[in-house]
Every structure is written in C-alpha cells, then in structure tokens.
C-alpha cells in the first residue's frame, strides 16, 4: 500500500478507535441511567457485576497485550535499515537549514537551505539538531497531513528515517513551542 494511503488510514484508524471508545462510555452511562431505578436483590447484583468485571478484566488485558506487542512492530526508532541519502537538519529560532553535509563544530557557521530537493522512493535519514532551544521537525504532505516527526534538541542528534513514496512538495512545520515565531517556522522538501 502506498504511504499516502497508509497515512490517511492511520489518521482515520485513530479517529475510529476513539469513536468506539466514546460509544462504549456513552452506552454505559445511558445503561446506568436507565437501570438505576429498577429493583433487584443486592446479592444478585453483586454477583452479576463481579462476573462481568472478571470477563472485562481478562478481555481488556488480552486486548491491551495484543495492541502493545502489535504496535511495537511500528516503532520509528529502527536504525538497522540502510539509508540511501542523509540530510542534516539544523533548526534555530526561527527557521531550518538542511543540507547533505555534516554539521560543523560551530553550528552558527553551518550552511544549509530551507528548501531541498530529494529523490522519491529512497530511504532518507534526517539527522536533526538545534542551535538554540528545542524545536520539532514535522513533515507534512500537500494534503496537510502530518507524516512523521522528531524533536530537534540542542546537544543531541535525533535520527529519523523516512521514505517519500510520492513525488511532490512537502512542508516542514515546527511541532515544539520555541518562542514568539513558532508558528512561522517553515521549510520545503521537493521530492522528485
């Protein structure tokens, strides 16, 4: 499946799962309102609720265990996959410098641009840092969907591997509050 389709599916899945959760809660609240005035022996009620709780406990634990291990397959931290190209990303108040050349010892002297060209269907390794405060490198497609992100923290290099499967113009927005012009930090990635 194409990544763009996957990403829409991911956002929809998140919305859908949450809707199910909300529906269960609303159903329970309505159930409690509607049953609250009827009569039943206290002992039977206790047995019923405890019986249901036992089933719920095991059901929930199983579901969470499956969900936990399944989700670990999709961790964004995999460093074993080979990168076809490496892009260094220097963030600063308030902009981005991107280039294939490694960082220099004094980050003030680092040369890079806020618009780069890269090739589609290649594994791109972004090595991300910050010159001043913490920023966050968020990659958006032309539909305004957030595809992936990693923090840009002073003193650290975060490595984000990403594969652009579709040609087009991608934007980078800052995802961590970094001061007065946080909303203005933008860069462009042209995927050819």
């Amino acid at each position, binding site marked *: 499946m194409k990544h763009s389709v996957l990403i829409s599916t991911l*956002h929809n899945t*998140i*919305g859908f*799962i*949450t809707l199910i*959760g*909300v529906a269960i*809660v609303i159903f329970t*609240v309505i159930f*409690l*309102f509607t*049953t*609250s*005035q*009827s*009569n039943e022996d*206290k002992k039977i*009620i206790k047995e019923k609720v*405890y019986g*249901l*709780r036992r089933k*719920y406990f095991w059901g*929930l634990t199983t579901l*969470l265990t499956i*969900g*936990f291990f399944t*989700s670990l397959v*999709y*961790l*964004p*931290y995999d460093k074993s996959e080979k990168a076809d190209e490496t892009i260094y990303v220097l963030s600063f*108040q308030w902009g981005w410098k991107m280039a294939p050349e490694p960082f220099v010892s004094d980050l003030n002297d680092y040369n890079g641009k806020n618009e780069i060209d890269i090739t589609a269907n290649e594994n791109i390794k972004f090595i991300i840092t910050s010159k001043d*405060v*913490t920023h966050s490198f968020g990659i*958006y497609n032309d*539909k*305004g*969907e*957030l*595809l*992936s*992100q*990693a*923090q840009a*923290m002073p*003193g*650290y*290099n*975060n490595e984000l591997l990403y594969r652009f499967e579709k040609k087009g113009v991608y*934007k980078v*927005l800052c*995802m*961590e*509050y*970094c*001061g*007065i012009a946080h*909303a*203005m930090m*933008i860069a462009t990635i042209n995927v050819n």
Partner: protein
Amino acid sequence: MLALTIKEKKQQKKLINIWVITFLLAFPLLITLGLLMRLSQGEVTETSPIDFYMYMTLHGLGMIGVLFSFAFAGLWYLVSTRFVKLNHKLGYFIYILILIGLIGLTIATLIGKYGPGWYMLYPLPFINTFWKDWATILATLSLIVMGVAWLIGILHVLSAMAKEYGGFSNLLGWQYLKKGKEAKKELPPLIMITTIALIPGIFAVIAAAILLILFLMQVFEPSLSFDALMMKNLVMFFGHIVANITMYCAVGWVYHILPEFTGRKITTNKVLVYSWNATFFLIVFAFFHHMYMDFVQPLPFQILGQLASYASPIPATAITMFTVISQLYKSKVNWGEVPLMFLIGVAGWAIGGFAAVVDSTIAFNSVLHNTLWVPAHFHTYMLMGVIPFILAFLFYITSSKNNVNGSLFTKLGFWIFTIGSYAFLLMFYLGGVKSIPRRYSSYAGVQLEQVSDIGKQLAHYASYMVYVLLLGLLLMYISIFMRLISKKSEQEYIAEIE
C-alpha cells in the same frame, strides 16, 4: 468516625469555603485566557503572539496550580472532618503560600509577559525571550513557593494518617495482603487513595525543585547550561504526575461520597489494594510517553512509557469504574447533582483516558504528538473529568442532604456545561485527526492551506462553544453562591456532620 468539636469542624469548614471561593473566582478567569487564545487562533480577535503565549503560560500553570491545590484541599477537608485530625492553622498557611504563588505567576505573566508555556521547556526561558529576567525569576520563585506549600501539606496529611493507621505500610493497605490475618483497623478507601496519590506528589515536587533551582542558577549565572534531555525528563515527570494525581485525589472523593447517595458502602479489600498499589507505579512511570519523539531517549524508557500507559486503564476501569458501576446499577439512587456529576465525571475520565492511551502508542504518537490531539485528551480529562468531580464536591459540601433530587436549575446548568464542553473538545479532537499543530499563536501564516484553514475554523467554532460552557457554569455558580451565603444550609450542615 472522628471525634471533633463543633469548633474544629467549623474551622475546617471555613478553610474549605475559602478554597471554594478561590476556585470559583480563579476558574472562569483562567477559562477566559483559553477563550482569548481560541478567539485569536480563530481570527475573531487580534492578539499579538506575545500576549498569546503569555495567556497560554498563565492558563496552563494557573489551571495546574488551582486544580491540584483544590483537589488536595478537598481531600484535606474530607480526611480532617471524617478520619484524622489535621492542623487547620497549617491549612491556612498552605493556602496563603499557594495564593502568593498564584499571584506571583499572574504578575510574572500579565505584567512581565512571561511566556515559555507551562512546561518552560529548557532552554526556552533563557534564549531570545520576549520577557525580562525579573519575570523568569518571579515565576520560578512563585512555583517554588507553591511547591513548598504542596510539600508541607502532603507531608502533614501523610504523617497524620500514618500515625492514626499504624504506619505507611498500613496506609498502602498491605495489612490486607497478609494471609490469615484480619486487618486490625479498617482502612477507608479514601485514606489509601490519598496515600497513593500524594506520595508521587512528593517525588514530583522534588523533581520540580531541582529543575527550578537549576533555572535560578542559570538566571544568575548565564554562562551555565544544562542537559536539555535531562531537563525535559524532569519537567515532564513533574507535570505528568501533578496532572495525574489531581484526578486521583478527586477519585478519592468519589469512593467516599458516592456511597452516601447509593447506600452501598465501599470497603477496602485485597483487589482494591492490589489495584491501587499498581496504580502507584503507573503514575510514576507513564510520564516517559511525553518523550517518544526524542529519539535519543534510551529505548527501554520509551517502551516503559507505553507499557505503563497501556497498563493504566486496567486498574482505572476494571476496579474504579466498575466500582462506580456497582454503586449505581439498580441502586434506586436519586439523581441529584452529586451522583449525576460524579457519573459524568467518571465518563469524562474514561473518554480522556482512552484518547490518552491512543496517543501513548508510540506508532500513533508520530502523527499525534504536539497536534491538537494532546490538548484534546488532557482537556477532556480535566474539563469533563476533574471539573465535574469538583462541581459534585462543591454541591456536596454546600447542600442539605434533604435536597435529594437537586435543583432542576443546577442540573440544567450542568447539562449545558457538559454539551458546551464536549462540543469544544470535539474541535480539538478533529484538529488532532487533521494534524493541526498545537501552541500556534495563529494559523494565518502557515504556508499549508489545509492547516491554516482548518486550524482557524476549528478554533473559531470552539470559541462559540466556550460561551455555551460558560453559560452552563454561570447557572451552576448562581446556585452554589446562593447555597454558600445561605446561613440555613451552614447550620444544617454542622448538624449533619455532628
């Protein structure tokens, strides 16, 4: 039941009344700051980024400060009037310290324009700031004063309870786990939950103290610099725990108060002890989920963050929420204000918690972190969880027990508040699904049409919803103030708890 003189009861009642009035005044003012932010993002009003971030900082720090302080004050009141004598003079001292802290924060932000957000993410308060050093110093000192107040209060409550119940292990309910032995003295669930909620509070305050002292050191010696990842771990440890235990303090009230309305007593047993002791660890370790996008954070911490977050709903839902279900199911309860608000609060906790677990999934966090999904879930947790609990508590302590069905006027207010709040929250959730970044003073300049259009529209709609929830709040306020000033209810109340 605790033997207290009428004078002692009145002293504690007076203290909680002062807290109630403080909360009632501060809460809508802090909401107004949030409204101003949404109005600005919705391009209804024009707000400079400086003012926006100043509002954001006061809204966040103020809400955390007021809500946790009130949740703690509520526990103090219940514990001191029902179970263990607490020093009311110390209670006033703590109140004054917290008030000084809140006033200090207000001056640092509204006048000093201090604006690094509640989390003051290091080194943001020190680089290219739009505020002066004095604002950083004042805000830091104010937070230290509040932290000291919380620490004194927590230590006093815990030590008084430990003395009464024979040590800390008894407060944690461990005597119920010993085979063949009956617990000598019955441990009320409220006391165990208070213990479980407040001990992590001590850890949180210590983490904040370290952070804030390092802040002060850097203000006075600008050549210093500290490790950004360590500082972020410290602030998230503090913030996560305080937000989390605000809820758990309020959950303690539910365990104690709801049975008074359903006639079904909740007693401590093994399952409850295991469940709440597990919760203790989950409160302490779940904070790692705030650092998923810091790829340099050691991997075991990332996994631990998701594990603790995934485990959290097990005791929360299977034990506490099922306890609430077993309280209400076919209970013939009169749906007065208190049980109604507790039930809606538990529902809000469940919904906010569910959305939080979704976000705590590392794979989802890549596309949700720092989008509007984050304020969506914690606003649900606070606005539709903690706040209904607080409202229930307010009606509980100000109402006569003869008024079993509550007033229609108040309940109408509450339903308007609930509908307005969920409609307001929906805009955050939609923003999260639509990848709208949070903490943007304006979406107008974003060179990505969908983000700028949707971000603006959702903020605009959300601002209308704030008016709706404020209307609901106003109706409830009228009702609470009438009861607060009514001498009759005061006398009735004193008679009832005698």
